[in-house]
């Protein structure tokens, strides 16, 4: 069985967008991704992605250093409001877990059914891994993107590393 690879991803831009579907849709052009994606799915294009984590709760991911310009551009969209956009780029760390056993590894701490039939590529949600809250996004059949609050990242990484060693 191929190894399961856990990588900490480089810093990126994260904006918390809180908006009803209609105002969110008006931001699609400025962000470059069609907003809002269906609930619990992600839409992405280029280096940008939007994860619909709740009815009015969208996590926008973008290239590093884009926060200020994006906030400005999105605020400038005519008739966009009322929405809430908040820069949380430094509040979270991203991990990527790759390998045919990636789902099993995540199930060492995550209680969700990660079978591709129930959690296919493009699915995303907030959930738990052990005692840490995470955002889980399946970017491919055997690839998961995980967002975790900065201060929980060492705990999550240590748990994943230990579990991965036991899977091998």
């Amino acid at each position, binding site marked *: 069985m191929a190894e399961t690879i856990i990588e900490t991803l480089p*810093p990126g831009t994260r904006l*918390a967008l*809180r*908006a009803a579907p209609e105002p969110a849709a008006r931001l699609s052009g400025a962000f470059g991704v069609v907003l809002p994606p269906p609930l619990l799915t992600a839409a992405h294009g280029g280096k940008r992605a939007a994860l619909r984590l709740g009815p*009015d709760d969208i996590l926008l991911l973008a290239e590093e250093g884009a926060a*200020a310009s994006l906030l400005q551009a999105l605020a400038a969209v005519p008739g966009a*409001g*009322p*929405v*809430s*956009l*908040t*820069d*949380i*780029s*430094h*509040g*979270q760390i991203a991990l990527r877990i790759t390998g045919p056993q990636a789902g*099993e590894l995540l*199930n*060492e*701490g*995550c*209680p*969700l*059914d990660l*079978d591709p039939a*129930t959690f296919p590529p493009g699915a995303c949600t907030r959930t738990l891994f*052990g*005692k*840490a809250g995470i955002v889980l996004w399946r970017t491919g059949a055997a690839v998961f993107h995980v967002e975790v*609050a*900065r*201060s*929980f990242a*060492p*705990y*999550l990484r*240590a*748990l994943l590393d*230990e*579990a991965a*060693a*036991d899977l091998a």
Partner: protein
Amino acid sequence: MSRLPTGGRIDRSRPLQFSFDGRQLEGFAGDTLASALLANGVTVVGRGTKYHRPRGILTAGPEEPNALVEIDRGGGRREPNTRATMQPLFDGLVARSQNRFPSLRFDAAALAGLAAPLLPAGFYYKTFLSPRGWHHLWEPVLRRLAGLGRAPDAPDPDRYANRYAHCDVLVVGAGPAGLAAALAAAETGERVILCDEQAEPGGWLLSDPQESIDGQPAWTWLDDAVATLRAHPRVRVLTSTTAFHYGLQNFLALAEILPEGSRLRERLWQIRAKRVVLATGAIERKLLFHGNDRPGAMFASAARTWLNRYAVLPGRRAVLAASHDSGWQSVFQLQDAGAEIAAIVDWRAAPPPPLLEEAARRGIEVLAGHGVTALPDGMLAMPRAADGTLIRNRTRTLFCDLVLMAGGWTPTVHLFSQSRGRLRWDDAADAFLPGEPAQNVVCIGACRGTDDLAACIAEGQAAGAGTSLPPRVQRAGGLAVRAAVTGADGRSFVDPQNDVTADDIRLAVREGFRSIEHVKRYTTTGMATDQGKIANMVGLAVVADTLERAIPEVGITTFRGPYTPVSFGTLAGRHRGVLFEPIRTPPLHDWAAAQGAVFEPVGLWQRARYFPRPGEDMQAAVARECRAVRGAAGIFDASTLGKIEVVGPDATTFLERIYVNALANLAPGRCRYALLLREDGCIADDGIIGRLAADRFHVTTTTGGAASVLHMMEDYLQTEWPDLRVWLTSTTEHWGVIAVQGPRSGEVIAPLVEGIDLAALPPMGVACCTVAGIGARLFSVGFTGERGFEINVPAGHAPAVWQAVLQAGAPHGITPYGTEAMHVLRAERGYIIVGQETDGTVTPDDVGLGRLIGKKKADFIGKRSLDRPDMRTTGRRQLVGLLPIDATVPEEGAQLVIAPGSATPLGHITSAYASPTLGRPIALGLLQSGRVRIGTSVFALGSTGTAAPVKVVSPMFTQPAGEGENG
């Protein structure tokens, strides 16, 4: 040696060395510890808990009550109460017997057996009830004699894991029915998990190779089935895995024990299944006769397992004591393997003719309508009278070293019962069978009362495919258990593990216990590791017999998880040591650690408490840090403060309803110290509300309140005021917060601040600017009573900005300080800490903050409660300052009284410190009518009983030096 030269499923090419009580022995791969012991002729493996009678191996499975041993795998890996029947043999295994003092062969406490009348049912309850104090004398002795095993005393170095899994079909039990179910389910393409507690799948087939399935020998069919399942991509086969708990919505917990030498010792599986198929089998019943607990007495089914699966002949000359057909076949097979059969003693007057004919053909003597009682070297058979007692003037001596018991079968309905399915009594099965299920679960095979192999396969195929089950098939029969226990010798053991005899149960009933649940607890029948496997049905039959009622009228005890014992390590999984819970560190943690800071836990956070210099203790370090802040400037990591971005056109309205303060008049660029109450009017949290724009606020919470305040805000926003257009976003972890405090704090940061006129930033102001080139939110606030700033920068940039501030502050003597100095500094100014000065019963007015309440506001959380009479009464406890007269720091938590010796507390000390600024100890406290007592003295009661006088003063020990408001 009792190992047969051929046969069995052991691997004779892989001999394994092991030891038992220091004796070096040899077994083979594929053995359990129990089979290897029997193969070596070891028949005494433990002592009973109460009478310390020698005990042998009764069963070949998880129901084993006697062969509980201590397995020592070295390095702290010492596990008591391991069932030798479930422990796979491995090379170097070290096992020790339990409950023997001083040795297994000579047990001093076995004398207790002679004193048996002294230890009747309920002995422990009665002993410990009265007379008072007597147990002090007896308890150490009883503790030594009673109980199971020794708890390990070193940390367990092994690794344990947890895994969540989902499937369409979970099949519990890999006997013929379970295998057939898994095969059929796999064919439908469903996700299947098949688990079995044994190291090898097969269940009863492993013990009965003579059977055939679909025209194939049983073991050929078995090998094919297992190979098919293991190769199937949608099937997971878990061996050595016990499903021990069945929860709601088909959520089951399984404990997997990994092979010796694996990285992991055990793994807890938590499985959610759409359907569950229980193929959990059945457990044989013992018969009640004197000596039924002797080494050498075992279940007839166990003997067949030893013989066929492990190629072990468990005795040379056997007697079968039977009330049921099933044991006869075991005796025939033992005879074929070379054992002598002394006789078959059947409780029934007329066993089935085919069995009698076969016994006759084999030349085996049958004593029908007889019972037995033990002799030192065999059994005494006697006719059973109509009342079940033995007719003692017509005895027959049967020399033997093996007594097989065949009392019928108890379906293993534990998991079905845990699933909240109903059990129903079935006369034909003479057992409780699964009735109406409460979840999507079916029971098949022996746990359903089916004993025919072809029928088990058919039931498995139907259950696996999800179609309805064929009718139950039962071929063997026997004497009803209720009738079999009638007249049984009172010394017969019902529960050998708990040393409960038939007379113990009869006594309990005579003493008035009627409910089976009460009898169970009073006599301890079926408790400990048994959990209703062996003792319950026989014990129930004795109760029913004594009460002269039918078994279903007596009822059955509740089955609860775990089905078999589960180690704590398995339940804890990876959540131990540093991974017990997340250890959160703020962005400046690494810098503080490099400085040699001493940390303290605050919730899950690790915060720097103080920064000792060489030779300094905590008091000296804190004093130096405090003086630096008061005299020049200090720098402090406040990143753990909770932060919430409140955005939207109705943000002001929302915050006015949440906090007590008036906020409508808060201009952008200004901030305010605010209090949050619960609906009952008591303080829940405090923080700073900074207005960044008309529709955007930066709100801080206490470190501990970050999650709960956001939750509370969301609650009101979503459920009370969904019309408000406001959104909340946690920014706690986005911002690193660098507090720069002290009279020279402005000078320190001035060279670093760009984009605003720092001199124009008023106290309690907020501005967006850059600090050391990093985009920042700069608050001119503090929690020290000095001029101060809190620089919020994105957390990843916080270390660089911190370094820049340190560098810029060096000429001014800037000093890092920790949470302890922060506590002292705020106490000198009388600032409260929520959770220290408040405890959920304290109102704003109690702590002198009534002025914060927006008097003209129509509503805010808790407003109505502040008008309740008891909130306005005089005599509430109020925040005061306290000056100890004898100049020692009082204890936090010390009760305050009006005079030494008074038993009426007037309040308590909430915080106490040595104040470097005042050069004396200070304390804050909550004191009844505290504000009118200012100028008087009260007494603080220490935990050692001392009463120290303290003077009541204003909580503001020092006057503000700068303009800083409470922050």
